[in-house]
């Protein structure tokens, strides 16, 4: 059992969720309630990671974040090292490939909050922040939970993009999914099996928690 890889997966999933979920709240609200030319294009671009082969996405991220790219050079200029094949590079890739998993459930949830409810909040004198905390987030809670679970589980399970952008550097970019693949390659089926079982249990627990939270929120609203 490669505990390092397992902990790295949890760390990557934790950071991805911590950065992507707040970001997605604003993207999802924007997409849910605004109408403008080109919105369909933005939505299609955000959904791309759902349909692109992970290796293709990984290839573009590798090129886009690599040492020859402006982003890679900027990063190297500030931090003195390359972005790809580091945990930070992996985190950026993870945020990008999880965008649709976080944004889409939230967008559906925000779309379900009627305009009258939002207008009523404004007429109550609420500031945007208070409206967000008191009304919008509680009402969109099931969508937020779904986004959380999908992002978390998808990050832990992602293989192709991680391999392309991060490689398999122990302690830095070798996640549990990569480690399982390595163990199978090394004919260490026992370790691969144990790690697979653990990931399975974690995924089940995450989905169970989300379902529980969602059904409670539903019961609360009647």
């Amino acid at each position, binding site marked *: 059992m490669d505990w390092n890889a397992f902990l790295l997966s949890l760390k990557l999933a934790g950071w991805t969720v911590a950065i992507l979920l707040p970001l997605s709240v604003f993207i999802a609200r924007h997409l849910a309630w605004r109408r403008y030319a080109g919105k369909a294009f933005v939505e299609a671009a955000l959904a791309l990671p759902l349909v692109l082969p992970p290796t293709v996405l990984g290839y573009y991220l590798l090129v886009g974040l690599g040492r020859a790219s402006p982003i890679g050079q900027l990063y190297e200029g500030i931090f003195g090292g390359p972005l790809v094949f580091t945990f930070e590079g992996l985190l950026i890739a993870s945020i990008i490939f999880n965008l649709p998993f976080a944004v889409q459930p939230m967008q559906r949830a925000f779309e379900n909050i009627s305009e009258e*409810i939002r207008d*009523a909040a*404004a*007429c109550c*004198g609420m500031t945007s922040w208070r409206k967000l905390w*008191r*009304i919008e987030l509680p*009402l969109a809670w099931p969508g937020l939970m779904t986004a959380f679970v999908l992002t978390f589980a998808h990050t832990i399970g992602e293989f192709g993009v991680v391999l392309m952008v991060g490689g398999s550097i122990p302690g830095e970019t070798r996640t549990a999914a990569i480690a399982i693949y390595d163990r199978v390659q090394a004919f260490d089926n026992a370790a691969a099996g144990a790690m697979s079982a653990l990931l399975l249990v974690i995924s089940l627990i995450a989905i169970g928690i989300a379902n529980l939270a969602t059904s409670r929120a539903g019961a*609360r*609203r009647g």
Partner: protein
Amino acid sequence: MADRPTGLDARLVQDAPIPLNARLRCEPGEVLALVGPSGGGKSTILCAIAGLRNIAEGRISCNGSVWYDSEKRINVATRLRRVGFVFQSYALFPHLSALANVMEGLGSGRNGGSERRARELLELVRLGGLETRRPSELSGGQQQRVAVARALARDPEVLLLDEPFSSVDRATRQRLHRELGHLRGRLRMPIVLVTHDLEEAVQLGDRMSILHHGQTLQEGAPHDIMARPANREVARLIDLKNIFQARIAGQRPGAGITALAWGSTRLEAGYNRRFAVGDLVDWVIPSGSVILHRRRRPSRGIRENPVHGRVESMVRLGDTVIVAVKVDAHAGYPLFMSMPVHAAERNSVAPGERVGVSLVRSDIHIMPALQPDGHDDANADP
């Protein structure tokens, strides 16, 4: 120091998406009913007053402070306008209790003062004891009262009610009408009520504004508008059935009479000096002011604007019957009269029967002709 203007004053003009050309004024403590068919821009006006939708041109001020002025580019945010808004669907926050909904209207977090005030407001709308219930656990009427309490929580400068009685059954609506009547005695802000229900507007409004395609057609006291619509369009909107065209045949100010030539029939109406002999005019008479001549014991009233014809059709509505009479001297649309069912039976009024009726002189209202439309009767809707 000059007195600060009070009440709500709004002028709203735009071409799209919903055309508007509306002017309204509502004094503190007054209920202004905005009436008109659906899609006529009534709700858009409320939303514009609240700052929820922007209007191309206009000015909205309340108690002297300008909330919107397109020329001076003033547009105060909704949350700073202090409006109480009761939405058509009530728009209660579904995840919060009745008490918490009202507390959100108070604009403060959980503290003793605001909770006490929220409880008082729920008591005011007779919802004491239901504070902990969520909207889904309340009936339609109760939800509406929570919405009113929440709207009052901000101590609003204007109260906006968007068809607040349309989602409840008739009995509840009548009870809520009474409660609003009771409540408004204690409210000191202008109240704008949007409704498509004319009866409701007459019952609850101190003044009424008739809107059609976003345009204010007439504003005034409900009974004035009902008795004296400004033109044929208003007459149609307030559901007057007898709308006809005629020419002014004579003016006798001394006798208090303006004579009308309605086809070959000569009618007498109350004196109206706005018109000159020969003018083309529209005229209306409420169906209740068309009086049947009794067959057995004719009264002296039969000399007042007598008209004869044949009963074309009869429609019974509860205790009342609406009778359409095809007038002999007039080939156009029928004349409608309403009468109690028992009166129709006693006088053997039935389809095909000949009848004589009188048009009550003082109830004939003459209006400028909107447009000469080829045939001289406007009524197309029996």
